[in-house]
């Protein structure tokens, strides 16, 4: 049984809404509202959800790139929410992040060598020779060539830039990588290259990923377990086959049925949800999904359902199963 590498307990992130003449607080956006989960060593946990559901905020709060409002984040059994900046900086050696937009996340004025070398320098690889050697190694690992080191980001295609982003994340041999929509800006043929690369790297370096994406097929392909978020809350989490074959939460069911499948013969019993995602600054009472849920009951409007294990590792937050 592998050990849990990351434990998130009751994570909350509320953003203040300022307004009025004096910029007083007039409300809160509950971007992440009481989310708990555990990630095992060597596992890929996928987090899916629509825009505004808080999946990226969750990812960034784990690394404390966004300071969580409440809750506990344990990395290797150590609570990291109270560490000071210096301790956190040291810890980030082991926890890295890959961003969505390979165009915006690389400094256009730095060469690839500088981009990948920076985390090495920060974490104590002082000798220039050693750094050069490591950069060369990293470029080869992600499928680029050592001569790319002297180039600038604009000279690369989207897929290559994402490879640079991955090389930078790998520089200090991290244990956990948060991948925030790493392939959504890429074309299909390049997307599959990057997904394969990420899978290879996981096997080679025994990495753990938290893979955040909105594309359900991509998440299914790469993850071992998948969590579904809606309006700042985790609504369902299970092993990927269990979740995709036997979704329990009405939102997950609707979400899965809405994915267009590139197969003209596929049966289409689509659940089309009414309306839009409500605003997280004023979430519905009780279960956040009750305004759009085809199976909503009276209790759903009043009581927030608990996120509980139904059967073998299949967690769901829905009154239908209580």
């Amino acid at each position, binding site marked *: 049984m592998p050990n849990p590498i990351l434990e998130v307990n009751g994570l909350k992130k509320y953003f203040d809404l300022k307004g009025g003449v004096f910029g007083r607080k007039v409300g809160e956006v509950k971007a992440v509202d009481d989310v708990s989960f555990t990630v095992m060593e060597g596992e890929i946990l996928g987090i899916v959800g629509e825009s505004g559901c808080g999946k990226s905020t969750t990812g960034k709060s784990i690394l404390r790139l966004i300071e969580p409002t409440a809750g506990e984040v344990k990395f290797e059994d150590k609570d990291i929410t109270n560490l000071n900046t210096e301790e956190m900086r040291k810890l980030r050696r082991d926890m890295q992040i890959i961003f969505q937009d390979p165009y915006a996340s690389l400094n256009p004025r730095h060469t690839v060598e500088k981009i990948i070398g920076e985390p090495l320098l920060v974490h104590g690889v002082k000798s220039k020779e050693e750094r050069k050697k490591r950069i060369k190694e990293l470029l080869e690992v992600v499928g680029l060539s050592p001569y790319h080191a002297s180039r600038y980001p604009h000279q690369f295609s989207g897929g290559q830039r994402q490879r640079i982003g991955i090389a930078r994340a790998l520089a200090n041999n991290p244990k956990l990588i948060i991948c925030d929509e790493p392939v959504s800006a890429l074309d299909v043929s390049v997307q599959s290259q990057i997904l394969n690369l990420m899978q290879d790297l996981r096997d080679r370096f025994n990495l753990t990923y938290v893979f955040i994406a909105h594309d359900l097929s991509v998440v299914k392909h790469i993850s071992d377990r998948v969590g579904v978020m809606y309006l700042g809350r985790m609504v369902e989490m299970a092993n990927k086959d269990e979740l995709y074959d036997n979704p329990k939460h009405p939102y997950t069911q609707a979400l899965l049925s809405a994915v*267009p*499948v590139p197969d003209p013969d596929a049966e289409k019993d689509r659940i089309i*949800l009414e309306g839009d995602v409500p605003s997280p600054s004023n979430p519905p009472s009780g279960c956040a999904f009750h305004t759009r849920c085809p199976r909503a009951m009276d209790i759903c409007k009043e009581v927030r359902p608990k996120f509980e294990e139904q059967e073998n590792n299949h967690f769901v937050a829905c009154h239908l199963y209580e």
Partner: protein
Amino acid sequence: MSDVLLELNNLHTHFFTDDGEIPAVDGVSFHVRKGEVVGIVGESGCGKSVTSLSIMQLIPSPPGKIVDGEINFKGENIAKASKKQMRKIRGNEIAMIFQEPMTSLNPLYSIGNQIGEAILLHEKVNKKEARQKSINLLKLVGIPRAEAVVDEYPHQLSGGMRQRVMIAMAMACDPELLIADEPTTALDVTIQAQILDLMRNLNKEKETAILLITHDLGVVAEICERVVVMYAGKVVEEGTAKEILKDPKHPYTQGLIRSLPKIHEKEQKLYSIPGTVPKPGKGKIGCRFAPRCEYAFDRCFQEDPKLLSIGNERYTRCFLYEENVGSENDHAKSNS
């Protein structure tokens, strides 16, 4: 064929830049019938959007220019139509919706104003009638409280609602052809399902032909009858949606379909096409896909393959299908 609504014949749209002449659309031909839904599929930079903008004559000029070819709309070549003629067609007979509903609506005008503009321009109605028609259109595209929304501004609506407004605007004058350029790319899946559903209904009820430009083969399977696959400015394959998705012929189409992660299947490793989409440029010889193609042989690098007819409205641009029998052996030989 009298029921052909739009026919592109050997269309060439080039951009004249500092780096030289770039053939973004390099000899594209296809047609759309009345009431038909045709998809153009391809990755970024393949020329699918430029093709659609060329039809509407919305290519920024300079640097872009339609240098050759015909665009026949209802039997009339509109490739060289004057600005005045185009104004009559645009929004009236051919309408277009864009990918980004956030940026294609004017934030300073109310929804009713923006929908009403096209109606006032093309039809003999007064403002009051135009407003009533706008409300009806908003109802048609499934916007709740249409009477209130007509006076609201784009920032008050969500992404899915804005795309509905865009569609309402496009449908304002009952166009015969609707060009939709990645209409659901910026939307979430549950909203995407709503919008595709709406487009399907409009196509059925109003018999509007739709030319759908997308990179998502799933969307194609949902809504398109026929599909045109583009790569590096050229059509590489054409056929019905079923033929393309179930029995792709061109190695690029095959690779594209194989590299999609499938939601209902279990697979360990994804197929991936090596390399990246080539930069467009003039004077390249040979099949554009050859450097990434696993079946490529010498001839692919020396000659441009022609678009071959391999069945009823079924085309592919690949030497492998030149003589349907025996081509397998030929390529095995040249590989060894």
